[in-house]
């Protein structure tokens, strides 16, 4: 799981073009969205698209999104669970 979390952090940086951010700057359990990284609702939706593209996991509405994007860990867990259910 920790490895997957690292992978996700790199993908977040690439997808959102976070030029000055390193993977270690992104908290694993802290809030992903908000002032710290300057991410907002549009970034969340951009990540929704990336996750569907790269992992085949859909996050179809904002209510689910709010839960899933609490932290990188919650995102990793959600993808892991749904990826397994659908693909593996």
């Amino acid at each position, binding site marked *: 799981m920790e490895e997957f979390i690292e992978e996700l952090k790199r993908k977040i940086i690439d997808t*959102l073009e976070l030029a*000055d951010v390193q993977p270690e700057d992104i908290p694993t359990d802290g809030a992903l969205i908000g002032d710290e990284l*300057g991410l907002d609702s*549009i970034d969340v*939706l951009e990540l*929704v*698209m990336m996750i569907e593209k790269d992992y085949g996991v859909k996050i179809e*509405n904002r209510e689910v*999104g709010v839960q899933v994007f609490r932290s990188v860990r919650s995102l990793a867990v959600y993808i892991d669970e749904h990826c397994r259910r659908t693909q593996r």
Partner: protein
Amino acid sequence: MKGIRAFVCGAGIVDAAGIGLEKTWAALRSENSCLKPLSIFTVSHAPALPAGEICEALPSKETVPRTHSMALLAACETLSASRLLPEAIVLGGTTGGISTTETLIRSGETEPEKYRYHALGSVATYLARVLKCQGPVISVSTACSSGTVALKIALEMIRRGRARVVLAGGADALSRMTYYGFHSLQLIDPAGARPLDLHRRGLTVAEGAAFLLLVAAEEPPEGALAELVGSGLSCDAHHPAAPHPEGAGARAAMRKALADAGMTAEEIDYINLHSTGTVDNDRVEAKAIRDLFRDPPPLSSIKGIFGHTLGAAGAIEAVASVLCIARGYIPSNVGCTVPDPGLGLQPVPRGQSRRIGSVLSNSFGFGGNNAALILADPSRRSGDMGQKKMMQFSVLGTACLTGAGSTAETFEMFLRGEALYGRPDLATIRTDLSAGSLRRLRRLPRMTLILAQAAQKTAGMAETASPGGIFFGTGWGPLTETSDFLEQLFASEEQFASPTDFVGSVHNAPASQTAIRLKATGPNITATGGDYSFEQALFCAALVTQEGDDPILVIGADEHHDLLSPRLDPSSVAGGGADGGAAFILKPHTFATGLRMVPAFLSYIPEGEDGIVPLIEALGGPERICDRFGAVFAGISATTRSRGEACMEGFLRRTGFTGVIFDYRRTTGEFAGASAVAAALAVDVLSRGVLPPRLSGKGKAALDGKGILLLGLGEYVTAVEVIR
């Protein structure tokens, strides 16, 4: 003396209910939703989401995109009630010909002729051509408030004596861009829009067109349906897509509309809500209304019937409001079964026949572009608004970006008589903008932010100072975002659409990014009239500002895009593609002094006319022109060169002007924002007092205190005086 009032003497509409006022009226009365699964194009998922589409065939004499066809149908109905012909047209919209463009792009079409109706500005130009309107024609794009902003500009044209009969409204067709774009933002309610409902989950994209015919008079003309009594504009300056959480901008727009109409909140009989059915919009609008109205009047959203027609919505709702005033009816809030108790509002549950004297209609768009307008019974006693004037501008700051580089580099090269064409390398332009603040921003918004900041600096404004308003002219909008969005959509067989690109692709995105950065909460208008976009933005600024207002920011800019520019703007292929723009900090005055910029003339010119006679008249006649101006900076696009040169010849013949003529596109390169760069060059020349030697052709020539006349010559004729 009584003030000039703007009476509604005609209305026309095309929407999901069908073509014509009576179908819309029947839909309002029957309280049935017109929303159903989208069918005009096939989508990648099943079932298709609901949409508000026009199911009737759109009759049209020539092959034009849907937006153009709908706009003409609604315009013709608007004009049918009176024998009046419009002296001016103001049109709001966000899609233009994109519904046609996207299919052309998908098929790999490269022939520019096929894309000739792509531009947002092409809709208004098409109407002007068909309706033979020779006069001011302006296109504005402020996302979902476009139609309302167009009506505000028309109102000010009438109040300030620039036109007596104005056709104003909005038009937008359904397109893949907006369907998938709003889908990517997870803002479409799969059940159809349920404005103000507890279980609402989003909006329904829709299409339509609507116009009002505004007529200047001191007393209501016979047959007047309503009076447009006031309008207010504001910008959230908060976020590119989400509304200000406290509804500050929405409240400001409504408050300004009331002040503009000389009315109190208690005098409003009905509020036509913007309420789209999205969770955030409805919450914020409700909060703003509760703050402003102690005891809100009956209110409803009609988007549960017609859907959200984006740039047309404000015009469609203005027409619906006019019908409600003229026929005595308050429409219900179709789609809302259980009003959300958290909103603290009670939407009208059933339509009610009763007299209404006044309506407040709201429109809020992406980028926090807010507009509200007030329509009233024409027989209502009106307050004395007095005579208002078009503003002139003292120039406080100037900046530009060209192939030569930044402002200083551009002016230096220009003085040396060298060409400026090319594309500025934005990475090498020095700015104080952090990497974080430029994230997600592609070429056009980056140029706009760089220009805005540089202009503020030359005006001596503090980093934290906010301009009183932002007026932005762009011929083509953010092309990189538009192209990236469509490329990804089609490459993925319509599976994936980028929300970032969608939000960034709207024409007003650069101006709203600038507003966020500068915390500019005043009017925020993006004008998009092709090669005359900067002039249109300046004209809008002169119409909506007044004496005593804070200095405003006026920007004209366009980006060159390797794939799209050659298809959309054939002039752009000259010299390998150029882009850039200029920004100005301007202080509005009734009579400006010092170095100043005066928008003097703006007119669409029908084929076969050269428009020079009215131009010369507007500039005060041949004698004043020769006396006042030492040089003419002429903007002649490669696409309309022969026409532009004929105009220039006509101008010289009729004025006997013998000063310097600078055909600036040969120096700046060919792009829609070139006229803004020319204005910056004119300001620089005037502040030095001498023309570059190569320009005058006779060594360093002094201007002898004379000014520079900036002309746009082609399909439109425009004039901006740069004088001191």
